[in-house]
């Protein structure tokens, strides 16, 4: 055994001051070294990634941006101008991509509804808003105001739902689906955990049935069969039927995400609430749900993003969502063969909205992270 020499010390025991970290571990050089060049393999991957990004930008950038054509009358006219993407197929039909066949004179109504949507979302999404409670009540009235604005009646000319389309239709299905499925999904998750056997069986049966059936079949049921079940003479708007089906379908998935959160709450939280004499409802509302929903955020956002994108399935029962419009546009002889540009544009719209949803959820998770883990002492 080799004898270890005593460590050389420049300070007496107990009097070692806090020293600054070595310079190469902090700031931009430190970050570069730690993240991009920490090992030969890491350095190799960094160089490779930069090269791949260069290749992509070099190839696609020219086609998508520099050599592209924004305005032209037809595909042939596009090709005569430049060799890149022919975005003219999108720009000439932009109105249809946004509104479907909503009458041009009434388009201020969905525009206003969209502006109000953004305003209504502020108090819902952010808790630091002044007078949030009052604003939340206004936000609760939003669905009715928006339905009136878009559909009409009570002084506004009625626009039939068959004329809605494009991104407007996607937003209608997405926003309605999310806001209706959230409360429903929470109730289903609570029902599945209930001590009342009947309630538990009903909730479980509903969840398992909805999850076990493809959304497409539910949409077909909505478009064809539902009328057989309703009393004769009642006509039920197709869009309303679709909204109901989409909401129920998403609620079942959401219920499972929430259940995951509920099951992660330690038994001690229930016991502490019981020991204080809190009622079952107050315990659920004030103690259990706030924690369970926080845990369930990633799963719930997953469901929402899925719902939002699944709204494109309505094209199969003849609603003109962006994919339906794309089909119609591509069927036009003037624009034949421009599928790449058309679908890229639709994909970009979906990507941007889904990316916004996902960023918001990450931000929310961070803001709510008071959790069980210990934060640093001030």
């Amino acid at each position, binding site marked *: 055994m080799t004898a270890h020499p005593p460590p050389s010390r420049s300070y007496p025991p107990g009097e070692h001051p806090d020293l600054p970290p070595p310079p190469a571990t902090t700031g931009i050089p430190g970050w570069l070294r730690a993240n991009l060049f920490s090992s030969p393999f890491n350095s190799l991957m960094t160089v490779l990634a930069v090269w791949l990004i260069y290749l992509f930008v070099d190839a696609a950038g020219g086609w998508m941006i520099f050599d592209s054509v924004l305005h032209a009358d037809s595909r042939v006219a596009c090709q005569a101008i430049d060799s890149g993407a022919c975005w003219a197929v999108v720009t000439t039909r932009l109105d249809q991509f946004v509104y479907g066949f909503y009458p041009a004179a009434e388009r201020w109504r969905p525009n206003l509804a969209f502006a109000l949507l953004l305003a209504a979302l502020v108090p819902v999404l952010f808790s630091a808003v002044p007078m949030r409670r009052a604003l939340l009540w206004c936000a609760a009235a939003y669905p009715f105001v928006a339905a009136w604005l878009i559909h009409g009646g009570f002084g506004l000319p009625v626009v039939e739902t068959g004329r809605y389309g494009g991104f407007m239709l996607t937003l209608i299905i997405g926003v309605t689906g999310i806001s209706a499925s959230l409360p429903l999904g929470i109730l289903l998750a609570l029902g599945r955990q209930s001590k009342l056997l009947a309630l538990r069986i009903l909730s479980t049966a509903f969840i398992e049935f909805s999850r076990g059936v493809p959304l497409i079949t539910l949409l077909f049921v909505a478009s064809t069969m539902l009328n057989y079940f309703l009393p004769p003479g009642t006509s039920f708007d197709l869009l309303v039927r679709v909204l109901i089906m989409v909401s129920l379908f998403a609620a079942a998935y959401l219920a499972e995400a929430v259940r995951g959160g509920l099951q992660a709450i330690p038994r001690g939280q229930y016991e502490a609430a*019981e020991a204080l*004499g809190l009622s079952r409802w107050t315990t659920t509302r004030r103690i259990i749900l706030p924690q369970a929903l926080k845990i369930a955020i990633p799963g719930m956002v997953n469901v929402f993003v899925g719902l939002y994108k699944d709204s494109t399935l309505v094209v199969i029962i003849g609603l003109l969502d962006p994919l339906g419009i794309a089909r119609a546009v591509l069927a036009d002889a003037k624009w034949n063969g421009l599928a790449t540009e058309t679908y890229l544009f639709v994909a970009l719209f979906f990507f941007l909205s889904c990316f916004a949803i996902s960023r918001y959820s990450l931000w929310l998770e961070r803001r709510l992270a008071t959790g069980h883990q210990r934060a640093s002492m001030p």
Partner: protein
Amino acid sequence: MIRIAGLHKWYGDFHALKDIDLSVSEGERIVICGPSGSGKSTLIRCINRLEDHQRGSISVGGTELTRDVRDIERIRSEVGMVFQHFNLFPHLTVLENCTLAPLWVRKMPAAAAEARAREYLARVRIPEQADKYPGQLSGGQQQRVAIARALCMEPKVMLFDEPTSALDPEMIKEVLDTMIELAESGMTMLVVSHEMGFARRVADRVIFMDGGEIIEDAPPADFFDNPQNERTRLFLSRILDH
């Protein structure tokens, strides 16, 4: 204050509590000790119905504990409880932990509930932590918040279920000091604990449980210096001799 008669409890086939008789009068401080699995935690958890019993009766402050939810909630609002693992609500600040039950059970106005919470946080000596989250506090501080949270309901009885067992050694004293002060203020207390120094100092009676039964029930002087039962002597020799 508390009257338990002929209490039996089973977990499935396991007979956890066997014919327990126990009376606690107002202002009495009782420490319950015994080996693990002896039923001591189960006993105090029966008092506020965190566990239900199958035979016998429990009454607290004159209210008989039955299946009736209103009786259970009334008793729970009069009986405070402190847990081994604190069980604070991690998503609420310290202050909100303390005001929650006064607001929603006692229906107190917000300002009064907050004033009361700050008063009790000062009594357990952590008024400056009111706006932090439980996760930012040390174990000892969390347990003192848990005590303040229970006291904010101004209970007639306080139950402590091994309040110092999950704490680092240097934090045990601050929690015991808080409990001693509470005992000296005249609170009726049932404490499941192996802190024999605490028992000797504040308990009116020390109870030893083993195998779901009360084996010995005596004032601390008799309990420690002249235990009657062989099992008590064995237990004491195990935990006191080092």
